[in-house]
């Protein structure tokens, strides 16, 4: 109960701060609108207002504060505006509608899942190779690290252009970008997990004259499971980011990335924010789902109590 209260307090504080931030952010736009509508604004000239601080303007025109939370195209939309937009574009729209966030989220989610599957598979394979071969350890690992130092926003257009030139488009390029981001945490986590058995465990297998394959299936792989799930949680969030980034340079018409892009073209800040929240909620659901899978798998393995 105490925890619930603490959590609600934090959320309430964030919401209050957000509402407070909306006032100075939006006050200039609001005053311009109010002036056009015939209200008396201090100072009356737009030129004078331009050079004044937002705080000062707010203090002089406190009557305009409620309006900063209700603009059509605010610089910073208020929480309830985002919530209303989210509600209208999910629950109230048909899923098939091009304005439904669920439709766009599904487009992004399908690329995310495909990319996540490719990235996870690739990551596990690389980790197995790295753990079993010194040559792969020395040659692959540095490249895996370097690959993550290149900003994905710079690389994404190139991946799309290259794949397009060989006739691949649609979901695949997005999935490739998403896989590119998600394989890395899986490699790192799995390498650590596969190497987690200590010297004693390996000696024990040696005393049984076990083969390397037996050592992998009976010891290394099960020992790596907790590490794998931790990596998967990071990987799936990275996958979602990859899929969204993959939608930006193509000028895609569908997907959460496309919503972000369209929103910024037309100054639809409420739409941008609601797309951002949709992405965050989606990521939270995916990570939560993996958490549930982790609990049930580890419990079945006897590794969680």
């Amino acid at each position, binding site marked *: 109960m105490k925890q619930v209260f603490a959590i609600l307090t934090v959320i309430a504080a964030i919401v209050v701060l957000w509402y407070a931030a909306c006032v100075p952010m939006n006050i200039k736009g609001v005053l311009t609108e109010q002036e056009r509508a015939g209200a008396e604004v201090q100072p009356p000239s737009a030129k004078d207002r331009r050079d004044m601080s937002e705080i000062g303007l707010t203090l002089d025109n406190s009557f305009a504060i409620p309006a900063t939370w209700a603009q059509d195209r605010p610089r910073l939309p208020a929480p309830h505006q985002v919530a209303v937009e989210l509600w209208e574009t999910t629950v109230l729209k048909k899923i098939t509608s091009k304005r439904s966030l669920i439709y766009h989220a599904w487009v992004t989610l399908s690329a995310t899942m495909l990319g996540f599957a490719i990235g996870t598979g690739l990551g596990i394979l690389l980790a197995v190779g790295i753990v079993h071969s010194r040559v792969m350890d020395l040659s692959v690992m540095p490249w895996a690290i370097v690959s993550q130092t290149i900003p994905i926003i710079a690389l994404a257009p190139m991946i799309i252009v290259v794949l397009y030139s060989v006739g691949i488009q649609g979901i695949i390029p997005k999935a490739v970008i998403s896989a590119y981001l998600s394989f890395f945490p899986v490699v790192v986590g799995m390498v650590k997990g596969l190497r987690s058995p200590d010297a*004693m*465990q390996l000696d024990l297998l040696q005393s*049984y*004259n076990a083969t390397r394959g037996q050592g992998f299936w*009976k010891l290394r792989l099960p020992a790596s499971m907790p590490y794998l799930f931790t990596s998967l949680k990071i990987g799936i969030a990275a996958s979602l980011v990859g899929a969204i980034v993959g939608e930006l340079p193509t000028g895609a018409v569908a997907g959460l990335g496309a919503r972000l892009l369209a929103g910024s073209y037309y100054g639809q800040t409420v739409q941008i924010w609601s797309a951002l929240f949709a992405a965050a909620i989606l990521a939270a659901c995916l990570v939560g789902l993996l958490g549930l899978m982790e609990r049930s798998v580890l419990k079945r393995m006897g590794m969680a109590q």
Partner: protein
Amino acid sequence: MNTESTTQPVIEARQLDLTFQTNDGPIHALKDVGLTINKGEFVSFIGPSGCGKTTFLRCIAALEAPTGGTLTVNGMTPDEARRNRAYGYVFQAAGLYPWRTIAKNVKLPLEIMGYSAAEQAERVRNVLELVDLEGFGGKFPWQLSGGMQQRASIARALAFDADILLMDEPFGALDEIVRDHLNEQLLALWARTEKTIGFVTHSIPEAVYLSTKIVVMSPRPGRITDVIDSPLPKERPLDIRDTPEFIEVAHRVREGLRAGHGDDV
């Protein structure tokens, strides 16, 4: 060294040397170690840290390769013996797989060695009974006490019925009461199975209570300073530790340890 020539030697070491190359220069872990262990003996290795007792056990198990001298196990090289699954090894920590139940942990070597499913089940049942863990096969390791876990790891080492049991301070991490109990059980188990046991320990009473032969070792370089054939009878109740014979053997071990490394005790 010893004279029990009527029985057949299982482990023979002659002028065994092992030098580790480390960044701080070579470390002479074993020097000129000669020892014969006969079938059915219970041999303890006792000495301070760094005396090479664990290293010697690991050489027998082919987990370490000597740099000089000869060592045979069952008349073969240690590595051949390992590949023939000549020994079961019990480590200081139980090292059970947390994702396997006790029965499945005991089954691990049997799976690796390719026993049939029926034989696996039968052997698991037998060895769990041998270490008094019937009824615990379905539990996970974390559900058992430290002593029970170590018993399960002994069952795992016994499961494939190797003639030799090598134990590296198996009860070192357990408290005195549990240790006494396990020592008693180990003797009973040894009497039933007639295995040859190599047992590394830090504890003088434990070494004297368990062994037919006590090998006293000392460090820098690791070597054998005394080999004591125990005059104690095979039947050993716990209170044998209060008899004059026991105290005399313990005294000789203590003297051997003191002589071996001067004042550093």
